[in-house]
């Protein structure tokens, strides 16, 4: 029963974002090195009052961690990207068309959305910071035990090395509840001009709790980094990612995802405990100036353990949040990503974006008993010949 509840929520969310999707070089993307641009492809937050979208009692939040690995302070300019669709009649957040029907307004359309909220943070040398997506970070708590959600160094009562501080920093909570989106942070100087400093690392921890069913689960992945090319970053507001005029390393030609096929029986547990995977992708390109998200047609080559190959493709814009077995069909059991069709338990999917480059993380759902979540970063191969662009306001 619980499995059905989860499946319906994930499916609804995925279908809504599927609709949202349609629009749009030198070295590598990285999730294991400090970088100048960090992207968290998955930022999710939903309070307990979201009974229309989540099962009653379920609450989801994301703990964001952001650190400076250098011995000098660094400023970052960050953008929350809100990928929530909204009802045309009520303006409320929707993840399925039927959520836009009510007796007073009739039925509206669930329209894909994308807008950004930006903020700046100053991070002192070697400083680790963290906040909840639903709450953000503001104010100061300058003595241990530091209050969570507040900055530690105010530049008035205390200072960091060389007089550095978090003065001028404020992180807003995500723009809506529920929120499904992404976060991108760019290393800049005091004036907000992008700089070639590969000093940022980040993580996201997704925490899911269900007070009704009395269970919790957590998953963690690294933010995806783009390395700045030393000396190449100029002071304009267009960041060139890859290509012949690259300021930052390019996005990859292929994302490589090793996964269980959806519906596969978890091989370590007794009884039927299905495993499924949600793939969450965002484009490398974004135009924050004109509020135009990146887009791509995404080609999937799927190999099973018999070396048999299947393929499908699907356009996406701004964000894709989908069960693997909902990428090519709404009927999961007929998908090439389902165990029953593919014929083996695990597979390799090679994801080739046409249009803008892509970044991705995966959430693996083990749903036999209480939901248990595992997250991981995908692998990358090759560099795109064409550049991606991030345009700052």
């Amino acid at each position, binding site marked *: 029963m619980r499995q059905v509840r989860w499946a319906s929520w994930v499916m609804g969310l995925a279908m809504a974002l599927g609709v949202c999707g349609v629009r749009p070089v030198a070295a590598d993307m990285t999730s294991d090195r400090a970088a100048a641009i960090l992207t968290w492809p998955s930022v999710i937050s939903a309070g307990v009052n979201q009974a229309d979208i989540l099962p009653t009692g379920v609450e989801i939040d994301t*703990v964001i961690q952001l650190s400076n690995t250098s011995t000098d302070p660094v400023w970052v300019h960050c953008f929350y990207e809100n990928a929530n669709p909204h009802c045309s009649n009520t303006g409320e957040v929707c993840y399925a068309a039927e959520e836009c029907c009510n007796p007073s307004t009739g039925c509206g359309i669930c329209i894909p959305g994308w807008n950004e909220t930006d903020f700046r943070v100053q991070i002192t040398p070697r400083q*680790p910071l963290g906040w909840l997506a639903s709450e953000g970070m503001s104010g100061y708590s300058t003595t241990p035990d*530091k209050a969570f959600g507040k900055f530690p160094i105010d530049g008035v009562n205390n200072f960091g090395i060389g007089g550095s501080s978090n003065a001028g920093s404020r992180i807003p909570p995500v723009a809506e509840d529920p929120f499904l989106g992404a976060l991108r942070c760019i290393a800049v100087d005091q004036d907000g001009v992008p700089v070639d400093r590969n000093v940022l690392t980040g993580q996201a921890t997704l925490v899911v709790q269900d007070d009704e069913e009395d269970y919790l689960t957590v998953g963690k992945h690294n933010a995806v980094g783009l390395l700045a090319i030393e000396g190449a970053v100029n002071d304009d507001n267009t960041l060139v990612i890859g290509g012949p005029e690259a300021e930052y390393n390019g996005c990859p030609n292929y994302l490589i995802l090793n996964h269980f096929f959806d519906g596969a029986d978890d091989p370590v547990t007794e009884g039927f405990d299905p495993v499924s995977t949600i793939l969450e992708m965002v484009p490398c390109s974004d135009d924050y100036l004109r509020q135009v998200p990146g887009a791509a047609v995404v080609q999937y080559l799927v190999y099973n353990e018999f070396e048999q190959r299947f393929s499908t493709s699907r356009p996406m814009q701004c964000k894709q949040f989908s069960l693997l077995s909902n990428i090519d069909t709404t009927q999961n059991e007929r998908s090439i990503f389902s165990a029953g069709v593919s014929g083996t338990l695990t597979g*390799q999917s090679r994801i080739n974006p046409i249009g803008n480059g892509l970044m991705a993380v995966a959430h*693996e759902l083990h749903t036999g*008993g209480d939901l248990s979540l*595992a997250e991981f970063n995908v692998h990358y191969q090759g560099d795109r010949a064409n550049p991606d662009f991030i345009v700052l306001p």
Partner: protein
Amino acid sequence: MDMQRGRIGLMAAALVGLVVGGAQAQVTTEKSASILVFPKVVSDGTRDTVIQITNTSNSMVHAHCFYVNGALTFPELPAGPINPPLWIEIDFDIWLTKQQPTHWVVSQGRLVNAADAPCSNNPANYSCNDAGIDPGRVPPVVEYFTGELKCIEVDPSGAPLSGNHLKGEATTTTFNVCNPITEECVLEPGTSCTPGGTDCDSSIQDVAKYNALGVIGNENNDGDPVLCLGGEPTEDCPNGAEYDACPQFWIANHFAQGAPEPAIDDDAEVNTTWTIVPCTQNFETQNPERVTIFIETWNEFEQAFSSFATVTCWDELALDEINEVTFDYQTLGTTFAQSRLRPSSQTRSGFMMVGSEAHVYPGNNITQTADVNYHIEGERSGPDLITIPFDQVGPQ
């Protein structure tokens, strides 16, 4: 003409490799590599691990794999001079056809059986663990196994090869069974139980996943049994670095030990464990490598604390086991910390690590875990050597 240019280019590249000794990239968790290291592989009755390995190339790939059991001789007793790690290795070969993914459960291994039924919708068969082209005969691990798995890409004769065609993941499942030592349910801290009984809620499980650490091979690999990770040419490594070097620094962003879990209102807390293996390993002499690690930890106030850890062969260390004070939430005074770990200057080996973050919820009486790959910085100057028994290299 073009062919000649190509040859000259190849020769030049080879010469550069010989002179410079390679070692430019380091360990990776996001690219295909020639050596895969799974630092945390556990099958101990309360946990089991699924290994996934994939060939990312369009050619057949062979790999020689080593399970290294780092369990204590008497696992239920504390470590000490009379209770050292076992450091027992067993090895096996796998081969993967083009782009082939494979997997196995370490407690079960994967036996060769062409009659394994494929997964199917009609008739419904989703319990199809062994369906697919078997990658070889993968042995199960012993009953109590806590250690690592290392797979080295080789050519069909068994000689190490810098193909960079392998990627992998490890999924650890923790079962909510009764811990026979503490007599508490593993995932429900404080809930007493009878060992072997059914007191623990079996619907609770905990799954965590990390990417295997990859070491990228360079073009000057001579295929001998001594694999040189980084460094300049030496007697053992006449070609210099055959593989990229182990990192000089590991950067771990983590919660302070015992820090309140920010997303939960109860008295929930977060505890971190690091699993560490040395980069240098001698499978010929079976001498366990020992590495001393210097750790510098920064809190959110930019205040630094330092500590040391010593790891022989393999270890899974909770932060408060490394040092009760420097990682503690009360000491650090902030929820988050950044730790930078490096081999101490007198240590001859680098090391590799993954983290495991346990979120403990006393209110709900549940523990849930997330594995995490850490960041790296710099590369070690000296070579780390992985020595394979010579009769495992070359024609079988």
